[in-house]
C-alpha cells in the first residue's frame, strides 16, 4: 500500500467492513482528539473499546476502559492507535500477538511508522497511517461538507433524510485519490530540515 495516498475505496472498504474498534490511547478528557473520535465513531454504530491502562476501573461514554489489547478478551476488527509515531511499534507488536489478528491497524493523524506498518502488512493486516477515522468517515459520507471541507465526493442522488444515530452512506462517487497532492507536499515539508 502506498501510504502517501490512499484510494478512497480502500478507506471506504475499511470503514464499511469493521464493526469493533479498539482505541489505544483513548482519553476521557473531552477536548482531546481521541475523545472526539471515540464519541463520533460510537455514535455511528461502531463497537468501541477504550484502551488506556491509566483509567482502568472507569468508563468512557459507558464503555469500560481496558488496560491493554491482550486484555480485551474477544476479537476486534480494527485497532486505532492514538500514540505518537515513536510509540507505535510496541502497540503493533502487541496487536500482532492477538488471536485472531485484527483486520486493520489505523494510526492517527500525525502518526506514522513505516517499519511497524510493513510488519503488520506482512501479517496480512490492512494499515492506514496519518489519518483520522472520524474525518475520513465524515468526508466520505459528505457530513464534513457542513464545515466547508472538500469531501472530494459528488452525488446527484437524494440522500436519506438525516435522523439521530443514523449511519450516513459512504457510497458516494469519489473525485480523487485518498490525498491531494498539496497535502503530500505538507508531509514532505514537515520532514525537511530547517
Amino acid at each position, binding site marked *: 500500500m502506498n501510504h502517501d495516498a490512499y484510494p478512497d*475505496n480502500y478507506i471506504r472498504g475499511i470503514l464499511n467492513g469493521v464493526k469493533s474498534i479498539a482505541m489505544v490511547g483513548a482519553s476521557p478528557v473531552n*477536548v482531546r482528539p481521541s475523545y472526539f473520535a471515540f464519541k463520533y465513531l460510537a455514535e455511528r454504530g461502531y463497537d468501541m473499546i477504550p484502551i488506556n491502562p491509566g483509567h482502568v476501573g472507569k468508563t468512557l461514554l459507558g464503555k469500560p476502559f481496558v488496560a491493554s489489547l491482550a486484555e480485551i478478551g474477544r476479537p476486534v476488527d480494527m485497532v486505532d492507535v492514538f500514540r505518537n509515531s515513536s510509540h507505535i511499534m510496541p502497540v503493533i507488536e502487541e496487536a500482532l500477538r492477538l488471536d485472531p489478528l485484527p483486520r486493520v491497524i489505523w494510526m492517527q493523524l500525525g502518526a506514522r511508522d513505516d517499519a511497524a506498518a510493513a510488519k503488520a502488512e506482512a501479517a496480512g493486516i490492512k494499515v492506514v497511517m496519518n489519518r483520522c477515522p472520524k474525518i475520513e468517515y465524515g468526508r466520505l459520507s459528505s457530513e464534513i461538507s457542513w464545515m*466547508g471541507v472538500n469531501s472530494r465526493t459528488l452525488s446527484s442522488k437524494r440522500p436519506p*433524510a438525516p435522523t439521530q444515530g443514523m449511519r450516513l452512506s459512504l457510497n458516494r462517487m469519489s*473525485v480523487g485519490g485518498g490525498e491531494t497532492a*498539496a497535502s503530500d507536499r*505538507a508531509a514532505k*515539508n514537515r520532514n525537511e530540515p530547517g
Partner: protein
Amino acid sequence: MSDRLPGFSTLAVHAGAQPDPTTGARATPIYQTTSFVFNDADHAASLFGLQSFGNIYTRIGNPTNAVLEERVAALEGGTAALAVASGHAAQVVVMQQLLQPGDEFIAARKLYGGSINQFTHAFKSFGWNVAWADPDDIASFERAVTPRTKAIFVESIANPGGTITDIEAISTIARKAGVPLIVDNTLASPYLIRPIDHGADIVVHSATKFLGGHGNSIAGVIVDAGTFDWSKDGKYPMLCEPRPEYHGIKLHETFGNFAFAIACRVLGLRDLGPALSPFNAFLILTGIETLPLRMQKHCDNARAIAEFLASHKAVASVSYAGLPGDKYNSLARKYAPKGAGAVFTFSLKGGYDAGVSLVSNLKLFSHLANVGDTRSLVIHPASTTHSQLDDAAKIKSGAGPDVVRLSIGIEDKEDLIADLEQALGA
C-alpha cells in the same frame, strides 16, 4: 465507483451540492435561518465543543454557505474553505489567525487599492505591520523577511494593471522563511490560475468579482490548501496552542490539514462576525456554475480589446499580459495559458484630462468601482480606487494619473470596440 477526477466544469456545477435530503430540491436551497435546532442537550454540547460536524448559528456556518465553501475548495484544489461577508473580511479573518500584535507580514506593492489601505491603516490599529515588496524584484521579498514575519501576501493577477505574479518564486521564499504564502486569486479565478498548484498555502477571494460574476452580491472566500505545518515551531498560537475559547482544544492537532479553515471559522468568523448572508451565497454559487464559460469569454474579449487599444493612435500604452510584447507575457503563458484575465489598464497620450473625457463619453461601459461583472466596466483609479495613495505610491501600484482601468464583460466584443472607438474619437 472508481476514483476518477472530474473536470473543472463538472466541479463548478456539482461540487458541494446534492439534492436536498428533505425535499429533493435539486438547486441548492437558500437556508434563510439564523439558527438550527439541536437534537438534544448532548448534541448541542458536542457542536459547541467542536466534537461533531453540524449547524448551530448562521454567523458560524450555514448549509447554503457550506455548499459555496466546498465548491470553491474543490475548484481551487484546497482541503476546505470558509465563506465570509466580503473579500476584505476574508483578509482580516486570515490575518487574525496568523498575526499577533507586533507581528509583520510582507505584501506585494502591486495590490488592489482597498487592500493597500486596509493593510496600511486598519491593520496597523491591530498591531499588524505590513512590509512592502516589489513583485518585479523577487529578492525584495526575501530582504523583507524578519523574525516577526508571519506571512507573505500577493495577488495572482494584480489589480489594476493585470500583471502576473511569479507565485512559484515567491512560494520558495515563503517556504524558506517558514511562513505561509497567501494568494488573492480574485482577478484570475481558479479557472485561469490555481495558486495552490504553484505553492500557495492559503487562497483568498473577493467572490464579488468573477466567482459570482454578475455584479449583484458582495462575498469573500478563504481556501485552506492543507499544505502548511502550523505546529512546526510554535509561531502560530491560534492553531498550535490549546485554545481557551474551546476549553483547551489544539486546532491543528484535532483537524489536521484543514485546521486553518476551521480556525478561520471558529476563531475568526465566530468572534469577529463578518458572516455571509445565505442569499448572497446562493447568488455566488449560481454564478460559479457558469464560471468556465464566462471566464473564457471575458478573456477572449479582453485580448481583442487590448489589441484594438494597442493599435489606436490616442493610446500611449496598454498593460495587458496577454499581449505578446507585454513585460508579463511569459509569466502569463506559464501561469494563465487560457487567458490573462479581463482586468487591465491603458494610458492615454492626452493624460489625466483625456482619461476623464473617455470615461464620460463611453455609452456601453459603466463607470463604477467594481471588476468582474458580466457588464464591461471602466474607472479612473487615480481619482477613485487608488485616490488615497500619494502620487508615488499610485505610480508604483500601476495607477498613475493617466491610467484608465477596464474590466471587460461578456458582451459582443465588436460592440465594446465600437464604444471605445467613438469615445476615443470624441
